[in-house]
Each structure stands twice: as structure tokens, then as C-alpha cells.
């Protein structure tokens, strides 16, 4: 006979878990390159991420897309290897290499088995020190970007993100630069620009190197010194602008013929990562739209069934940040969904409950150990410190900082950081139907924009 159990009792933990934070080591190479390292010996794997602070926000106004094209060009052949040969050297080791670019940085990364690390690092260093920048490769990669720009127009999510960024930053802030650039700018970029970019901006002094994995620190330092110390490029001053603009509330519609859904982005500029109320605003946002059980998602998804999901985020660049609510809803429900979102933004200013606060703090505190599971997560954690100049003790103090957040701070943060009269509302969808339903919208004028963010109607 099976024992009958009382299933109505929610099981509670009997003991606390023990978790030891991994130790972060830092060192400086002789060429000024700063290294952040965490040794991890669970598996025979090593990862490296080079973060060079020369992303697309530094692109000259008439050559937007330069940093991205530079990142695409840097592994097109190096030293004695042409593009295909270089790739083959990595492939033979089972190692992977990638070069990417965003608004702040160019990232070069490798992943290798420990047994192949030394050779992989040699190839990585060759890319950093002796990229070939061959004209044929340049032309091919540039044509690739031209086609990517076309393809981007097909993707309503990408277009919505891109246009949101454009309308909240406008032209007087370099974060309005699209990473890929645009057709006109791309035509202005030549191989000489890539070579100059490499020489003038891609430098150890404005870069940091993140390493995690299965290697002793002494051995790592020696290998890095011997491979990378001759990298001595300079870093010239740039003309990037990071001024703050305050927008008034407006609706921007990009027409997407035959679209059955509307991509929605609602938000405004915000502060950079090192803001004193970071923890309070993070908690506030978790309650508003930063988790599955957030107010926004429970309302729009679980009560109304309007959407597959909705979320709000504070995103952080090095010199700025933004607040954005993001969702995708059917055309018919777009107007109702936008109004529900605006209601929730208004309502959070009336304050959160102590239950919401306790729930969120508990979730953030208990989730902490699982942020240190994979090499990938560890690389992201260290990159976060590097990109935003956070102190090395950041993770040591994290739990205390979360615990210290009070309800007063959360409520104050909602009042300060959700600014209803600055909201830009970007809608990518069926223009005629959207214009129709938004004709009586009281929260801002409605404008039709094109794919470059210019107002056409």
C-alpha cells in the first residue's frame, strides 16, 4: 500500500547551499593590455575574448559601418595564410574563431581544447598582429554587408530594434549609428580606411583580454607575453558624441506590407551602467517586465492572450543606456496592447508591493550561483566588468547590494527612470491598419518613417 502524501504542502528547503565565487586574477602585459582571468578546470577547454573599445559608435559620420567591416576583414588572411588557409588552420584544430562588432566594441574570440590552445593562440595573435587586408577580400566582404543591409529589411524584429535606436538617439548621438552602416556610407569606405582604422584605433591600450578555462595563470601569462607583446598600435582620439537628448512622446510607423503582426518598441534614453541606483532600477524592471511573471507579461500574455511574450529592459552602452519595452502582437490587437503597456508604465509609478519586492530579491539572490556554470557565462561576467569599468569586487558585493535594495528605492527608481512624456513608440507593421487604429491616439503624434528612420509623412 502506498503512503498517501499531502500534496498541498509546498516543499521548503531544509539547508542553505554553499557557493564559492571563482577568483578573478588580473595582470597587465608589457604592451599595456589588461587581462582578466578565471581558472576553470572542470573540462579541457579555454576561451578568450578580446574587447577592443572601437565599435561602431566611433565610426565617422560619412563612413558608418567602418568598425563592422573592419571586424569582418580582420580574419580574412593573416601572416603567411590567406583567408581560406587561415580558417582551415582553426578548423584542423577543432578550434573556433569569431570576430563581431557592436556599438561600443570589436570582439575577437576563440574557443579551443586545452591540448590545442597554444597553436590556437598563435593563430589568434597572428590575426591581431598581421592581418592581410587584401583588396579582393575587402570587396567581397563589403558586398556581403550590402546584401545584409537588404536582408535586414525583411526582418521586422531587426528593423524595430534598429529604428528604436535611431529615433531615441537621433543624429547628435553616435549610438544612433547602425552597426552595419547604410548604403551611402558603405560606398565611401575603402580598403585604406580599414588599414588606417587598424593602425589608429585597434590598440592594446583601449582593449582588454578575457580568459577563462583550464590553464595555470603563470603559463597563460608567458604565452600571452610571447604572442601578443609586440602588438603596439596607438589609439587616436575620436569625434564620437555621447550627449543626451530628451525626446517628446511620438509614434513612428514603418510600413510592412502584408504583415500579420506588429513589432512594438516603446522607450527612451536612459543612464549608463554605472548609475548609483542600478540595483534598485533592476529590481523595479524585473517586477515591471524583466521576468516571466512580470506585470507586463502576466497582463498581455497570461490574461489577455495578446502576445507570445513581452519584456522590458534597461540596456547599457559604455556611455549611455536605454529603457525599452518590446513585444510582437497581431495587427488587430496592436492599439489595445500599446495602451496596456502604457498603463503598466504608469501604474508602476504608484509603487510596488512588498511581496513583489521580496519575490524579486529572492529570485535574484538564489539565481546567483547558476551564473557561473559555463565558460561562456564566465566570459560574459568578466566582459561586463571590462566593458563598464566595474570594480573587481563587483561579484563579491553583488548579493549584499541586492539585499540592500529597499521598497522606497524601487519606487523612487520607477518615478525617475520611467519617463512617460519622453516615450518613443516604434511600430513595424501594416501602415494602413495601424494609422486607422492610432488616429485618435492622445499620447503623441503619429509619423510614418522609412527604413533609415527618416520621416516621410
Amino acid at each position: 500500500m502506498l503512503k498517501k502524501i499531502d500534496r498541498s504542502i509546498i516543499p521548503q528547503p531544509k539547508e542553505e547551499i554553499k557557493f564559492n565565487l571563482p577568483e578573478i586574477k588580473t595582470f597587465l602585459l608589457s604592451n599595456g593590455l589588461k587581462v582578466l582571468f578565471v581558472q576553470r578546470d572542470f573540462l579541457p577547454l579555454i576561451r578568450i575574448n578580446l574587447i577592443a573599445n572601437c565599435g561602431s559608435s566611433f565610426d565617422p559620420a560619412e563612413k558608418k559601418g567602418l568598425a563592422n567591416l573592419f571586424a569582418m576583414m580582420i580574419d580574412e588572411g593573416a601572416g603567411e595564410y590567406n583567408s581560406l588557409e587561415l580558417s582551415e588552420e582553426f578548423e584542423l584544430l577543432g578550434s573556433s574563431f569569431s570576430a563581431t562588432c557592436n556599438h561600443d566594441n570589436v570582439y575577437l574570440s576563440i574557443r579551443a581544447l586545452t591540448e590545442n590552445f597554444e597553436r590556437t593562440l598563435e593563430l589568434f595573435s597572428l590575426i591581431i598582429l598581421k592581418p592581410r587586408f587584401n583588396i579582393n577580400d575587402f570587396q567581397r566582404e563589403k558586398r556581403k554587408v550590402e546584401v545584409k543591409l537588404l536582408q535586414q529589411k525583411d526582418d521586422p524584429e531587426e528593423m524595430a530594434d534598429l529604428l528604436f535606436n535611431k529615433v531615441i538617439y537621433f543624429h547628435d548621438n553616435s549610438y544612433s549609428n547602425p552597426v552595419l552602416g547604410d548604403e551611402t556610407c558603405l560606398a565611401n569606405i575603402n580598403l585604406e580606411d580599414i588599414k588606417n582604422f587598424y593602425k589608429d584605433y585597434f590598440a592594446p591600450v583601449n582593449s582588454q583580454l578575457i580568459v577563462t578555462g583550464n590553464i595555470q595563470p603563470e603559463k597563460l601569462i608567458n604565452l600571452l607575453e610571447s604572442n601578443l607583446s609586440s602588438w603596439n598600435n596607438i589609439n587616436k582620439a575620436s569625434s564620437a558624441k555621447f550627449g543626451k537628448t530628451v525626446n517628446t512622446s511620438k509614434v513612428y510607423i514603418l510600413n510592412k506590407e502584408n504583415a500579420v503582426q506588429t513589432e512594438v518598441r516603446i522607450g527612451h534614453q536612459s543612464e549608463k551602467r554605472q548609475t548609483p541606483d542600478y540595483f534598485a532600477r533592476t529590481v523595479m524592471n524585473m517586477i515591471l517586465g524583466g521576468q516571466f511573471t512580470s506585470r507586463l507579461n502576466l497582463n498581455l500574455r497570461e490574461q489577455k492572450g495578446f502576445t507570445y511574450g513581452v519584456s522590458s529592459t534597461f540596456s547599457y552602452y559604455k556611455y549611455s543606456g536605454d529603457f525599452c519595452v518590446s513585444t510582437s502582437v497581431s495587427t488587430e490587437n496592436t492599439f489595445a496592447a500599446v495602451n496596456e503597456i502604457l498603463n503598466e508604465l504608469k501604474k508602476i509609478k504608484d509603487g510596488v508591493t512588498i511581496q513583489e519586492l521580496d519575490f524579486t530579491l529572492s529570485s535574484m539572490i538564489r539565481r546567483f550561483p547558476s551564473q557561473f556554470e559555463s565558460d561562456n557565462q564566465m566570459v560574459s561576467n568578466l566582459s561586463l566588468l571590462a566593458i563598464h569599468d566595474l570594480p573587481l569586487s563587483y561579484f563579491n558585493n553583488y548579493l549584499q547590494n541586492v539585499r540592500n535594495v529597499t521598497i522606497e528605492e524601487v519606487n523612487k527608481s520607477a518615478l525617475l527612470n520611467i519617463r512617460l512624456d519622453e516615450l518613443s513608440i516604434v511600430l513595424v507593421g501594416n501602415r494602413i491598419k495601424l494609422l486607422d487604429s492610432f488616429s485618435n491616439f492622445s499620447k503623441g503624434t503619429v509619423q510614418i518613417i522609412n527604413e533609415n528612420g527618416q520621416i516621410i509623412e
Partner: protein
Amino acid sequence: MKILNIEYEKYNLSNGLQVILHQNKNLPLAAINIWYKVGSAFETRGKTGLAHLFEHMMFQGSENAAKEMHFRLIQEAGGTLNGSTTFDRTNYYEKVPSNFLELALWLESDRMGFLLPALTLEKLDNQKGVVSNERLERYENQPYGLAWEKILAALFKKEFPYSWPTIGYLEDIQSYTLEDVSTFFKNYYSPHNACLVIAGDFDTDHCKKLVEKYFESIQSNSFIRNDNIEKPSLEKTIYLQYEDNVQLERIYLAWHSDKAYSNDDAALDTLADILSGSKNSRLYKKLVFEKEIAQDVSAMQISGKLTGIFMIVATAKPGKDISEIKQDIFDEIQHLETHGVIERELLKSKNGIKASFINSLQQIDNLADHLNSYNYFLGEPNSFISDLNRYESINSTSLKMVASKYLTQNYVELIVKPLKKVC
């Protein structure tokens, strides 16, 4: 390779529920992962997408855990959770701090045994709305988003259960009744049709007691499904076209291939890698790098419990001829079939696969899912080494053989053309 030898203990409860335990004390975490042996291939025409609907309904509360409680309790515990559906199976998983293992087991057992008492029309209607939106967002509104279901419908006869997409058709999603949901649940969400994997930091004896406490008393049904499925084939090559809101023309070529973990499955995987997996892969190098007639190309072996599909997809650059791309693809296949591959190509592919195997062991929830997958397909959870050996043993002859056996047969060709602009 020693690190790929994953130790485990496997046993059955008296109701037939399979249990697999794997201890790993790297971090104070526990992963709970349940596979139900039901996926979209178990549905019937007119009610497609029902298996995937469960991925939603299973989070709508059960007798002792109200709507949203599952999310709330796991999140409050600092855990993560989700589920996913394929042709062949549905999985549900949580990753929690190890001291919350019991909470996760309580929640999983409550919905395995007591979902129906909490089922209401209101919940069903709400999730029908959510799933309809999921379909609109992820398929209808995506560039080329409907290509996959058009290929499935052409490749398989109507009765073959891979002939419809896992998400289901919109009109079917909107037709589900409470009766549909409860019958499907009674048939498939039974302990004897499921396998529970627990991986991570726990005490084995204690863990076994908890599993017994929460799962042993759940009754199994006696439903047995009759699988009597013919091997699919194509009598002739099928050519399809449709217009979509896209800038670039794209071609899809799909062949019938072999099922998951069959003799030819790994060879087809390797073939796909050699065709398009890297810069030096044959099709990438020729179409994207040298001739620049395609913006991208990818080959893949997609295999399930019943059968497999080998697919090649290429997007034409603006103004480039899709038939030239197609010709190049077929030339390359023919070349492979006649001449095989060189040792260097095989070595690259094998080294890449080995590295990705090791990389996949990093997160305890991934590992738990792998154990369940091997158990479902092979009956042996610890199959990492034998799985890797499938790839290690491939040579040029086996690649020539699969190219000839599958890729010279009839196929489905789908061309997606940019919508003509009406100005």
C-alpha cells in the same frame, strides 16, 4: 575519452516511470528533466499542434499549484524552467539551487498526476491565443517563415505524421476543445510514458526517497500506441514556388534520409558539415566565397525517431540566378559521390565534432537533456562515447555511399521568390 563517460543510475518505479540519476557536484545546482514520449507525430490531422499546446498548458497550473505558480515558485527559488516539443517527444525542465530539488519534483509530479482537475476553458482559450500569436510571430511574420511546413507537406504523404509542423496549423490551434486536451493528456502524460532525469548536486538516497514520495502514487494508464508506419519515399521530384515578403530569392532542396542514430545518420551529418559547415566547406567556398552567387548556404541532416530529412538551403545574391546555384549544388553532390572526400576534410570535421561534444557538457541542464535523449533513442543514457565513435569511424567510402544512396533520389525543391511590388 574519460570525461565523456557519464556515470548514472537507472531504475523504474512500480508505475513504470523511468528514473535516471547522475551526480555532479561542481556547483550547488540540480537539473530536473522529464521527457514524455509524445510529440507532434502522435497527433492526428485536424488537431495538429496539440502536443505543443501542452508545452503551454503544463504551465497553467495543476491541482495543488495554481496558474502561474510553477513559474513563480521556480523563479523565487532562483531557478530557470521551460519545455520544448519536437516530432517525437516533449520535454520539461527546471534548473534550481540544489536545496530546491524537492520543490521541482513536487511541481513536476503534480502536473504529471493532477493536471486535469485544474484545467478550465478560460485557461485553454487564453493559451490558444498565446500559441496563435507564437505562430504568427515565429512563422507567418518571419521572412521565409512558411517554407518548412510547405516542404514537410510535399515530402510526406498526408498520413505520415511528420507531414505537418510541430506548432500546428492556425485553424487547428483555434479548434482545440477541453475534450481534446484531456484525452491527449490521459493517453500520453502517464508515468510509464515518461523518463525523469535528475542531474547535479544531491544525495542519492535522499533523492530516491523524494522521487518515490512524489511520483510512485501516480497511476499509469494502459494506453499503447500502435506504430505501423511505412518508410516514406517520393514517387517523383516535386517542384514548388511561392512568393514572400523578402528581398532575396532562396532555394530549398530536401531529400528523404535516415532516422536518428541509424547507420547512415552520422555520415549524413558529416556530409552536411563538409558541404557547408565552415569557410572551407565545399558549397560555402564555391557559392559564397569564390563565385559570390549566394549570400549563404547551409546543409543539414534533420533526423527523428521515424525518419530523416537531408536539406540544403541557399539564398541567392541580388540578381544572381538560382538555377546556377542549384546546378553547382548538384555538381558538388555528384563529385562527392564519385570521388569522396580527402583526409583533411574528414579530420577537420571530426575535430570540430569532438570539441563540440566536450563543450556540450558544461551545463548540467544540457547534460540532463542529453541523458534523456540517449535513453529515448538508444536505451542507454551514457552514450556520449559511442555517439562520438559513430563520427570517428566515418571514412570517404561511407560518405560516397550516403551521397549516392540518398542524394541521387527524388527530392522536393522549393523556391521562395520576392513578392512583386505593386506600385
